[in-house]
C-alpha cells in the first residue's frame, strides 16, 4: 500500500507532460481589490504565487507536476516544521541558532535506540521528543530565568548539541531504520478508498480540508457579523473560499495522481493549523506578541514574561525534535553532520514570511509561505539544473530583498505621521 522514495533533491519526475493548473495563475479585478485592502499581509502571497508561476513557466510545468509536488512536500517538510517554532521565537524578540544541532541530536538519539538497541520505532520517536523538550527547557532556563540573550544561549547550544550528537553517535553514521520508522517522512496514505489511476482517499481528505476551511471561515464571519464588525462582501468571501478551494484541490489532485497523501503532509497540516490557532487565538499567543512588541509594557500589564519565554523555547525544542524525527526518517539514519544550516533556512523562512527583526510581528502562515518560497526556488532551480553555488546566491538575495521590501513598506506606512 505504501512506497518510499529515496531522498534525492530535485528529481525530475517521469510524467513531465503537464499543463499548469489554475494554482499558478491569479489576478481578477475583485481579487486585486481584496489584496489591496490587506496589502501589508498579502504581499508575501503575491510573491509566492509569482515565484511559483515563474518556475512553472521556466520548467515547462514540471514544477507543478504530480511527482514533483509530492517531492517538494517530502523534501522541505522539516524546514517548515522548524519555521513554525522559529517564527514564534522571533516574534518574542529572540532567535534560535541551535535548531540544526538539535535536529541532529534528536535524530541521533532515536537512531541509537532503534537501530543500535533494536527498540521499537515509537520508542525512538518518543525519546527524540523527550530530548527535544529537555533541550528546549535548557535554553528556556538560560534565556528566561538567567536572562542571557537567546543569541548567545543558542549559539552555545549549537556547539553543545552538535558535540553531544557526535558523542551519541560515536562519530559514525547509523543506518538503516526499520520500515515503520521510515514511513514518517516517506510513507503515503493511499488506496484506502480505491481509485481509477488516482487516489480517491487523497481527494477526499483535500475536500474535507476545503470544507473545514469554508465552514470555519463562515463561522468566524458570522460571529463578526453578530458583533457588528465589518466583513468582506459575500461575493468576495465566496471568491476567497473558491480560490483557496481550487488551489487545495489542484494540489490534492496532483498528489492523488502521484503516490497519494504523504504522512508528513498530515503532520505538517496538523502543526500548521494548531500553531496558527495558538498564536492567533490564545492568551499565550497574545503574550508572545506583547513581549516582542514592548517587553516593559507587557511586564507591567501582568504578563508572566519569564514563563512565556521559557515555554517558547520548550516549544522550539519540541518542534526541533519533530523535525529531527522527520529528517532521520527521510535520510534513513543518523549522521553526525545532519541538520547543518537548518537554523538559517528556518530563520530565513520566518523573515521572508514577514517577521520583524525587532520582534512583535510575524505569523505562522507567513513563515510557512516563506519556507515554501525557499522550497520552490531551490526545487525549481534544481529542476533547471542551476548549480548549487548559484542557488545559494539567489536565495541570499531573495532573503535580503524580502526584508528590504518589508522595511520599505513599513517606512512608507510610517511616514503617514
Amino acid at each position: 500500500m505504501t512506497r518510499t522514495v529515496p531522498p534525492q533533491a530535485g528529481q525530475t519526475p517521469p510524467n513531465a507532460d503537464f499543463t499548469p493548473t489554475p494554482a499558478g495563475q491569479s489576478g481578477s479585478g475583485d481579487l486585486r481589490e481584496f489584496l489591496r485592502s490587506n496589502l501589508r499581509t498579502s504581499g508575501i502571497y503575491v510573491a509566492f504565487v509569482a515565484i511559483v508561476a515563474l518556475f512553472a513557466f521556466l520548467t515547462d510545468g514540471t514544477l507543478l507536476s504530480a511527482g514533483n509536488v509530492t517531492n517538494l512536500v517530502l523534501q522541505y517538510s522539516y524546514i517548515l516544521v522548524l519555521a513554525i517554532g522559529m517564527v514564534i521565537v522571533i516574534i518574542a524578540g529572540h532567535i534560535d541558532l541551535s535548531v540544526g544541532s538539535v535536529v541532529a541530536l534528536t535524530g541521533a538519539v532515536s537512531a541509537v535506540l532503534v537501530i543500535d538497541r533494536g527498540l521499537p520505532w515509537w520508542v525512538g520517536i518518543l525519546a527524540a521528543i523527550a530530548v527535544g523538550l529537555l533541550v528546549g527547557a535548557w535554553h528556556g532556563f538560560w534565556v528566561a530565568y538567567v536572562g542571557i540573550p537567546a543569541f548567545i544561549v543558542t549559539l552555545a547550544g549549537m556547539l553543545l548539541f552538535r558535540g553531544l550528537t557526535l558523542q551519541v553517535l560515536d562519530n559514525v553514521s547509523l543506518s538503516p531504520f526499520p520500515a515503520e520508522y521510515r514511513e514518517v517522512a516517506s510513507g503515503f496514505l493511499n488506496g484506502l478508498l480505491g481509485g481509477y489511476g488516482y487516489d480517491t482517499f487523497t481527494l477526499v481528505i483535500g475536500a474535507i480540508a476545503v470544507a473545514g476551511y469554508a465552514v470555519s471561515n463562515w463561522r468566524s464571519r458570522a460571529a463578526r457579523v453578530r458583533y457588528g464588525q465589518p466583513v468582506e462582501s459575500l461575493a468576495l468571501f465566496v471568491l476567497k473560499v473558491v480560490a483557496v478551494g481550487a488551489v487545495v484541490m489542484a494540489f490534492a489532485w496532483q498528489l492523488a495522481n502521484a503516490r497519494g497523501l504523504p504522512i508528513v503532509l498530515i503532520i505538517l497540516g496538523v502543526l500548521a493549523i494548531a500553531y496558527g490557532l495558538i498564536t492567533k487565538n490564545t492568551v499565550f499567543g497574545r503574550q508572545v506578541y506583547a513581549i516582542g512588541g514592548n517587553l516593559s509594557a507587557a511586564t507591567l500589564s501582568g504578563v508572566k514574561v519569564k514563563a512565556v519565554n521559557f515555554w517558547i523555547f520548550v516549544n522550539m525544542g519540541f518542534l526541533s525534535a519533530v523535525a529531527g524525527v522527520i529528517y532521520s526518517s527521510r535520510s534513513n539514519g543518523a549522521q553526525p553532520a545532519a541538520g547543518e544550516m537548518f537554523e538559517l533556512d528556518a530563520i530565513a523562512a520566518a523573515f521572508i514570511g514577514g517577521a520583524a527583526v525587532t520582534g512583535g510581528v510575524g505569523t505562522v502562515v507567513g513563515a510557512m509561505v516563506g519556507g515554501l518560497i525557499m522550497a520552490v526556488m531551490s526545487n525549481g532551480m534544481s529542476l533547471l539544473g542551476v548549480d548549487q553555488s548559484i542557488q545559494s546566491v539567489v536565495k541570499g538575495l531573495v532573503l535580503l530583498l524580502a526584508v528590504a521590501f518589508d522595511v520599505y513598506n513599513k517606512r512608507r506606512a510610517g511616514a503617514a505621521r
Partner: protein
Amino acid sequence: MDDNILEMRSITKTFPGVKALEDVSLTVRRGEVHAICGENGAGKSTLMKVLSGVYPAGSYDGEIVFDGDVCRFSGIRDSEHVGIAIIHQELALVPYLSIAENIFLGNERRGRGGLINWNKVNAEASELLESVGLRENAITPVGQLGVGKQQLVEIAKALSKDVKLLILDEPTAALNDTDSAHLLGLLRTLQERGITSIIISHKLNEITAIADNVTIIRDGKTVETLSLHAGEVTQDRIIRGMVGRDLESYYPERESHPGEEVLRIEDWAVKHPTQDRLVVDHASFSVRAGEVVGIAGLMGAGRTELAMSIFGRSYGRHVSGQIFMHGKEVRTRTVTEAIDNGIAYATEDRKKYGLNLIEDIRRNVSAAGLGKLSRRGWVNSNEETKVAESSRKSMNIKAPSVSSIVGKLSGGNQQKVVLSKWLYTDPDVLILDEPTRGIDVGAKYEIYTIINDLVAAGKAVVVISSELPELLGTCDRVYTLSAGRITGEVPVREATQESLMALMTKERELAA
C-alpha cells in the same frame, strides 16, 4: 527695517490621505525667541521637520527663506550647514561616549594625518560647556548626566556648529523647575549673542515668560502670531487660540464624597536595585473610595519608585511594608497579584512602559485583561473588539477604528488607550503617574474629566504629578514626598503651590 532671519511661506505638506500642514506661514525675526504653540498633532513637529530638511525640498509646497536666501534643503546636513540646529524632544546623544565626543560627533575636528587631537577637542568642548553654564568635565560619559544636563550638552553641540537658529522641541518637558529655569535663562543669554531660538512648548507659563512672539498652529494651519511684549497676551489668550474655544477652566468641577478606605500602605520601604540606599523611606499613605489623592515630589523624590514597587514590586528591592485593600492585608509580589487585588498603575512613560506601539488599539486595551476575555486560554477576539470599541467611544479616542496602530495616535489618545486598558481590569484603585505629561490642553481636560468620572463611580485614584497646579486642581488631598519620605499630608483646600513646595523640599534642607 524688517530683519527676518526666517520666513516660511505657505508651507503645505501632505501625507497619503492626510494634510498635515496647509498654507502655514512662519516669520521669525533675527535675535528673538519665538514660541510655537499648538495641540499635539497640530503640525508643529512636521513644520520643524520641513524646516530642518527631514522632509526634503520637493516633498512639500511653499518656500523657505533663511537669512535672505531661498533654501531648498535635501537633508539635515544642508540645514545645519546654513546654521539651523534642531534639538529634539528625545535627545540624540550616545550615552557611552564622553561629552566632548558627543559634541563633535559627526563633526570631528581632525588634525594632522586625519587623527583627532583629543586635548584640543576636550579644551574646545570645555569652552562650549562654559558658555552653556554646564560645570562638568568634558570627558564624562553623557550617560552619567541627568536629562537637564544632557539638554545643555545638546545645545553646546549646536553651538559648536556656529548655529544661527536654534530650534528646541519641548525642551523642558522632562526637566524639573530648576533645570527649566536654567535652560530658559540660557536662551536669553544666547539671544544676547545674536542667536535666534524657536521653542516649541506646552508649558505656557514658560512661553509667556521668555518668548518675544508666539505663533499658534491649529489643525495644520497658522492661527495667529501674537507679540508678547505688550504684556496683554495671557495664557488664557494663547489657549483660546490653540483650542479654538475658551476653556472655562483647566480643571473640571467635581464634588467630593469620599467613602470607605480602599488602599492603605504602611511603612513601605524600598531599596535601590543596585545601591545600598532607601529610595522609598518608610512611607505610609491611604486612599478612600471616591477620592483623588495626589503625590507631589520633585524629580528623584521616589514618586514613581513608590508606585512601581507597590505595583508588583516592579522596582527595587523590598525592605518592609504592608498593603491593605479594604482593610485586609494583600500581597502584590507580582504584577498579576497586584492586578488581581484591584490595583492598576498607568506609567509615567507610556511609550516605553505602557503601550505596545506596533499593535492596534484593540490589543493594547485587552493587554492587561486577557483573562477576562478568554476561556481556558482561548481569547474571544470578537468580545475583545467589542470591549475596545466601547472604550474608544466612551473615552473619545480619536482614531478611525480599533484596528488603528497605537504608535500613530497623538499623546492624549495614547493615554486614553492606557486608561482604557486599566479600566478594563476593573480596578478599585488607579495609580496614575504623570497622567497628562506631553498631552495638549484639550486632551488634558478630557483626562481630568475621566478621572472625575472614575471617582464618581466609587474608584480611588492616586495622581502622581510634577505639576503642582494639576494636583491642586484635581485632588482632594495631597501627600508630599521628599527623598523617599512622606513629608506632609495636606487637604487641597488648605494647600498652595508654595506650601507644597516647602514640604517637597523639606528633607533636602535638613540634609543640607
